[in-house]
């Protein structure tokens, strides 16, 4: 019998396979990457193209994981981004490689990333524009922030592609004390909020 692949619980009881390539899209994808970085708790290589105006704010990142473990690589185009990502995955020197993609990624490129992740025993996460992922990815997540009266970190995480399980969706919020994403029970049967919603 083959050994089960190593995994980590990205959400309580929601396993995510390690050493594979995952994808996240939507306006809340950064928070997904931060959560994964916090869960893996090791050096992170974050690759983005140098022309993108939106900068990662390390002060905001420090609410999730330690910015001292964060390395930023600024590339000139997507070809370089993919090459650097593959290099970083194969080197087995970091725990997580986050790649910001701006263009559709081919099946070949996606498969190369997947193989590199498996060879180098490193987890990869691609932040993709909506609908531009590769079929080689292990899972794909759509993350959207959701308004909530009581909480400012509420989001909805949907798994929209899963090679090793079923599709599902969760309402989540960040717990800064334990540095974990918590699953919020779906609206309706939520204790304590029954009278608030009226």
């Amino acid at each position: 019998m083959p050994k089960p692949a190593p995994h980590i619980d990205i959400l309580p009881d929601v396993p995510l396979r390690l050493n594979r390539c995952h994808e996240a899209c939507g306006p809340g994808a950064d928070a997904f990457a931060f959560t994964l970085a916090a869960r893996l708790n090791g050096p992170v290589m974050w690759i983005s193209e140098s022309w993108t105006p939106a900068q990662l704010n390390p002060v905001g990142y420090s609410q999730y994981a330690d910015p001292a473990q964060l390395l930023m690589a600024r590339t000139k185009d997507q070809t370089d981004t993919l090459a650097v990502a593959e290099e970083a995955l194969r080197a087995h020197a970091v725990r997580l490689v986050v790649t910001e993609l701006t263009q559709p990624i081919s099946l070949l490129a996606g498969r190369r990333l997947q193989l590199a992740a498996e060879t180098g025993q490193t987890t990869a996460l691609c932040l993709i524009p909506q609908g531009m992922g590769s079929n080689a990815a292990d899972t794909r997540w759509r993350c959207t922030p959701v308004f909530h009266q009581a909480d400012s970190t509420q989001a909805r995480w949907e798994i929209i592609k899963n090679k090793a399980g079923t599709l599902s969706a969760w309402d989540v919020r960040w717990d800064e004390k334990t540095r974990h994403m918590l699953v919020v029970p779906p609206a309706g049967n939520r204790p304590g909020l029954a009278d608030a919603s009226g």
Partner: protein
Amino acid sequence: MRPVDGPFALTLHEANTDRIYCLNDPAEGQGLSQGMGLADARAFCPDLQSRPADPAADARFLRILARWAKRYCPWVGLDGRDGLALDITGAAHLYGGEAALLEDLHARLTRAGLQVRSGLADTKGAAWAIAHYARGVAPPGQTRNHIAKLPVPALRLPEDTVTALQRLGLRTVDDILTLPRATLTRRFGTDLLMRLDQALGDQPEEVSPLPDPPSFAAQMSLPEPIGLAADVMAGTERLLAQVCTRLTQQEAGARALLLTLRRVDQASQQVELRLARPLRDAARILPLFERGVSAVDAGFGIDQLRLEATQVERLPARQLSPLHAAHQDKLHDLITRIGSRIGLDNVHRYLPADSHIPERSYTTAVAAYSDPSGAWVTLRPRPIRLFPPEPIAATGHRPPRHFRWRRMSLSTARITGPERIAPEWWLQDDSWRSGLRDYWQVDTRQGRRLWMYHTPQTPGWYVQGEFA
């Protein structure tokens, strides 16, 4: 600077006054002398031109001259701040004798625009005396005759000893030589006799040559040209072993390496490797060359390889630590390899900075030249993305109920704030020209959580960041 015709002097600021450090012949003709105060000198000679001296640059130039002087003999040392001592034992015949050698040296230095005084004798002391107080060559065995008529300072004595000797009426070296040695020692100590003996050769004095600067380069010529990447790598491995041995001896590490491959047609190709950390471990450096070597166009073949460590840093031996070393090494190698593709300057890390201004609350540093340090403090929630401020159409002091941002129609559901941040007036920053900013966290009903600010001094609303 142009050469000047009139009196000219270099000055040095010493003991709170400017004193003449060096001067030219016209200035000497006006009665000026070395060590004179500049103010006095100007009183003597109103048209004196002067410049501050640069002793460090002089010392550098003297070292260059010492290297040049190795064309006459391999044994060249520095003598004081303006002299060279050459031990030409066994080398004079190459130039046709001692006088011819001296003539050649004078001719070349004069052509280079330098004024030279020189002396040649059996001992270093006598040569010094002749160079400073006479001219020419003292033939072998004639040293005593040649320096006998020279004044006392020619023996390289301290100033107070010279003054004391002159007060006693001892003006020349000959005067001292005729006195009994015991009385001299009793009166002036052993120093005077030591200098005398050194000048006459009764006591040895060595010329200490300058050490060669360490060179971290190795070269290899091949009888037959090679073209396969594996062969070039094998050659590189041999050169790297030599360079790394030398680095280890000097306790240094290479930061940048340059591999020059000369082809049969005399064209040469270069592979540059910049390392994320100073290294001297051949086994770690070699794989980092693979990418560069595979991109080389070998043409009809390569017949010469040269490897040079172009940038070297000190790398003292360290105690081996089993904990972090291996993992850190891997990370540095990864930075090097990524750097060889996108440039080492494009791999950053963040360092905390002490400022309330959001875009200055951190700095980015090149990962290869920095270490993670400092603690990250967040007093208030901060957005996870920052972008250049994007104006939105709104008025008033509180965030608008409805607004459009990036072609999205958003409505405000909850606001947190304001947090007032004042510009740092001690730094020029064009983006903070608009004055104070009141920052608000705006949670929209559509989900997006934005970081907006209002500038009360020049009314306007902007979005600068986004929360998780």
